[in-house]
C-alpha cells in the first residue's frame, strides 16, 4: 500500500455512488460528443473542401444563371486546369415522395474530372457519356431507394415543367462511391444537354454554376478574383469563391444554430460539473471524521486535499473514458449511419472528430478537479478537533 493506492481505495468506498457518478459523467460525455459531432459534421464540408476548386456563380443570387459562353471564358483564363458546369434540377422520385436528394444536370465530359473524389467504374462512365438518358447516382441513395445499374427511374422536378408525354425518365448507368469524407453520397447526376434541349429557347444555354480547378491551390484566391474581374463589365457579374469559402457562406445561414449548439454543449459540461461536485461534497461531508483522524495521526492538510482531488479526478477520468467508449458505437454505428443515409445532404460524414475525444476526456478530468477544488480546500482547512467531533 502507498498513498496513491490508499486514495484509490477510497474511490470504491461508496461503490454505488461512484458507479452512478461515473455513469453521469459518461452520459454527459456522450451528449457532449454528440453535439460536437453535429457541429463537426455540419462544418466539415467547408473544412474538407477541395482547396483547388473554384465555384463561379451569379453575383447576387444563386437562383439566377450564367450564360454558357462564360464556361469557355473560364476555360481559357490563366491558371485554370479543367472546367465543368451544372444546373440545379431539384427533383424527387414520386414513388419516394419524402426522400430529398440533389439532382443536378452536369457536363458529362468534365464533371467527374473536376470531382475526382467521386469514383465511377470506367466502363459505367463510358456508357453513361454516350447514353443521353443515363444517370449516375451515389451509393447511399441507390441503396436507400433500391436502385441498381440498369434500372429505369422517373423523377419530377419542381423547377422544370413535367410533361406527361415526355417524362423525366433516366437509366441508372452507374453508381459512384466517395473517396473523401465531404462528398454527399446521395447525389443524382445526368446529362446537361438533355435538360438544355427541353428548356424554352429563352432560357436555353444558361448554366447554374461553373466549377473549375486551378493549377496552383496557393493562388486560388487571386484566380477567383481574376475570374470575377473578367466578367465585371459583361451582362452578368459573377462571384467566384473557392469551395471552402463557398461552403462557409452557405453555413453562415445556420450560424445561429451552430452557436446554439455550442452553448448547449457547454451546458452539459456544467451539468457534469454539478454532478461531480455534488458527489465530492457528499463524500467529504460523510468522511469528515476520518479526515480528522488522518490529520491527528500526522497527515498534512495537503494530503487531505490531494485525496479529495485525486478521487474526483479518477472518477471523472473513468467516466470520461466510459463515455467515449459508449459514444463510438452509439454515434458512429447508430445515429451516424442513419444520418448519412437519410440526411446525407447536410451530414455526408457523421463521425466523431478525434480531437474532440481528447477535449471530452480533458474536460471530464479538469472539470472533476474544478468541482472538487472547493470541497478539497474546505476539507484540508478543517480544524482537527471539529472534524473529530463530527460523526458520519
Amino acid at each position, binding site marked *: 500500500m502507498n498513498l496513491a493506492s490508499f486514495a484509490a481505495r477510497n474511490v470504491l468506498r461508496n461503490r454505488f455512488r461512484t458507479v452512478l457518478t461515473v455513469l453521469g459523467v459518461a452520459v454527459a460525455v456522450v451528449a457532449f460528443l454528440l453535439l460536437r459531432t453535429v457541429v463537426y459534421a455540419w462544418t466539415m464540408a467547408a473544412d474538407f473542401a477541395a482547396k483547388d476548386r473554384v465555384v463561379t456563380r451569379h453575383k447576387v443570387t444563386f437562383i439566377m444563371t450564367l450564360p454558357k459562353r462564360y464556361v469557355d471564358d473560364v476555360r481559357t483564363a490563366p491558371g485554370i486546369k479543367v472546367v465543368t458546369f451544372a444546373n440545379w434540377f431539384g427533383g424527387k422520385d414520386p414513388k419516394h415522395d419524402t426522400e430529398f436528394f440533389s439532382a443536378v444536370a452536369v457536363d458529362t465530359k468534365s464533371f467527374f474530372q473536376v470531382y475526382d473524389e467521386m469514383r465511377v467504374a470506367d466502363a459505367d462512365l463510358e456508357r453513361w457519356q454516350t447514353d443521353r438518358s443515363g444517370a449516375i447516382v451515389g451509393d447511399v441513395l441507390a441503396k436507400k431507394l433500391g436502385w441498381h445499374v440498369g434500372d429505369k427511374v422517373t423523377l419530377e422536378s419542381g423547377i422544370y415543367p413535367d410533361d406527361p408525354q415526355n417524362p423525366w425518365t433516366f437509366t441508372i448507368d452507374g453508381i459512384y462511391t466517395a473517396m473523401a469524407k465531404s462528398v454527399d453520397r446521395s447525389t443524382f447526376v445526368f446529362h446537361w444537354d438533355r435538360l438544355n434541349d427541353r428548356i424554352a429557347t429563352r432560357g436555353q444555354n444558361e448554366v447554374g454554376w461553373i466549377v473549375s480547378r486551378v493549377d496552383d491551390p496557393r493562388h486560388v484566391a487571386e484566380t477567383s478574383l481574376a475570374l470575377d474581374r473578367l466578367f465585371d463589365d459583361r451582362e452578368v457579374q459573377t462571384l467566384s469563391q473557392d469551395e471552402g469559402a463557398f461552403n462557409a457562406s452557405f453555413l453562415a445561414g445556420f450560424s445561429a444554430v451552430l452557436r446554439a449548439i455550442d452553448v*448547449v454543449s457547454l*451546458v452539459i459540461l*456544467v451539468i457534469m460539473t*454539478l454532478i461531480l461536485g455534488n458527489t465530492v461534497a457528499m463524500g467529504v461531508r460523510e468522511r469528515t471524521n476520518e479526515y480528522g483522524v488522518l490529520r491527528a495521526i500526522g497527515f498534512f492538510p495537503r494530503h487531505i486535499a490531494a485525496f479529495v482531488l485525486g478521487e474526483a479526478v479518477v472518477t471523472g477520468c473513468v467516466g470520461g473514458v466510459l463515455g467515449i467508449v459508449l459514444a463510438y458505437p452509439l454515434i458512429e454505428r447508430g445515429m451516424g449511419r442513419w444520418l448519412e443515409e437519410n440526411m446525407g445532404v447536410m451530414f455526408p460524414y457523421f463521425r466523431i472528430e478525434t480531437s474532440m475525444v481528447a477535449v471530452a476526456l480533458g474536460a471530464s478530468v479538469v472539470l472533476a478537479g474544478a468541482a472538487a477544488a472547493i470541497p478539497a480546500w474546505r476539507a484540508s482547512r478543517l480544524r482537527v478537533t471539529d472534524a473529530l467531533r463530527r460523526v458520519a
Partner: protein
Amino acid sequence: MIPVRYNVRSLAVRKTTTIATAAGIGLVVFVLASSLMLAAGVRKTLGLSGRRDVALVMRKGSDAELGSSIEDPQVGLLGSLSGVRRGPRGALVSGEVIVVAAMEKLGASGVSNVQLRGMTEQSHELRPQFKLVSGRLPRAGADEVLVGQRLRGRFRGLDLDGSFDLRKNRPVKVVGFFSDGGSSYESEVWVDLDVLRTSYRREGFVSSVRVQLESEGKFDGFQALVERDKRLGLQAMREATYFEKQSEGTSLFITVMGSVVSVFFALGAMIGAMITMYAAVASRQREIGTLRALGFSRSAVLGSFLLESVLLATAGGVMGAAASVAMGTVHFSMINYASWSEVVFRFEPTAAILGQSVGFAAVMGLVGGLLPAVRAARIAPAVAMRG
C-alpha cells in the same frame, strides 16, 4: 402521511447538495424549454404568415414559391375564376415574384440569403395585418424598397435611407420598415414588381399568385377549377397550409434535436438526483427507523421520499423554466429550408411549454427518486435503536 414540511426542511438543511442537484435539473429544463420555444416560434411565425381565405397558386410540382413560375396571362385568367373576391380595382389577385439575394450579414461573417418579393398594388390588400412601422411607402415603379422589421440592422444596407444593389449599378433605397403581425413576411424585402423583374430578367413571369377568395369555404371549388385545367399546369393551396408545410421541416428538426439532447441531459441530471436522494436516505437511516417505529408505514416513507425528490426536481424545473422565459427577448435567425433564405424567429414562451417543462422535471425527480425511496422504505424500525 409524513408532513411535507419535513421534506422541505430536509432539503433546506442540505443546502449545497440541494442547490447543485436542482441547478442541474434546471439546466436540462432550460435547454428543453428553449428548444420547444424555438420550435413554437417557427410554427407561430410561419403559421401567422398564411390565411385560410387566400389561395396560393404555384406551378404544379413546386414545393416553394421560389422554384415556381407562372406566365403573366395566367394571372388574369385566375382572377376571372368564380369565388374570387372583387375590389374597387378589380379582382383581388396578386402575382408576385420571389427571388433571393446574397447580402452581407452584420455582426457575423459571411453573406446570407434574403428573400425579396416583387409586389403589386393588390399585395397589401391581401395582407390585412400589414402596417408601416417607420418611413413611408415606396412610390410605384421607383427604385425604392420596404423592409420587414425583423431584418432591420441585420444586413448591410438594410437601414432607413440605406441602399443596396439589386444588380450591378442598380441600387435601391430603403424608404420604410413594415410589420405584419409577426409573420415571416417580416423577414422579407418588398420591391416593386416590375423593378424586381427587370433587374432579375423575369419579365413576363411571376413566381406565384395569391387570390383573395370570397370566403374560406370557396377554396375547394376554386382549387378544383384551377387543377381541372391540365394545360395550366398549376396547383392551388390555402396560403395557411403552404406556410404550415414550410414550418414542418424546420420545427421538426428543432423539436427532434432538442428532445434528443434533452433526453441525454435528463439522464445525466436524473443520475444526479439519484445520487442526492441515496445520500439523503443513507444519512437519515436512524430518522427513518424512528419514523417507522413511531408507526408510519412503509408506503408513507416511500411516498415521503418520492415527494422530496419530486420537490427537489420541480424546484429546479421552475428555475430552468423561469430562465428560459428570458430567451423570449432573443432573436434567432435561421435558413428556412423551403425558401433557402433567412427568416428571423423568436423564442415563443407559452404556458403549455413551461408547464410541460416543469412536468418533465417532476418526472425526472420521480424516476430518479424511485430507487432511493424504495431503499428508504425497506429500512427496519429496529435501525432507530442502533448506535
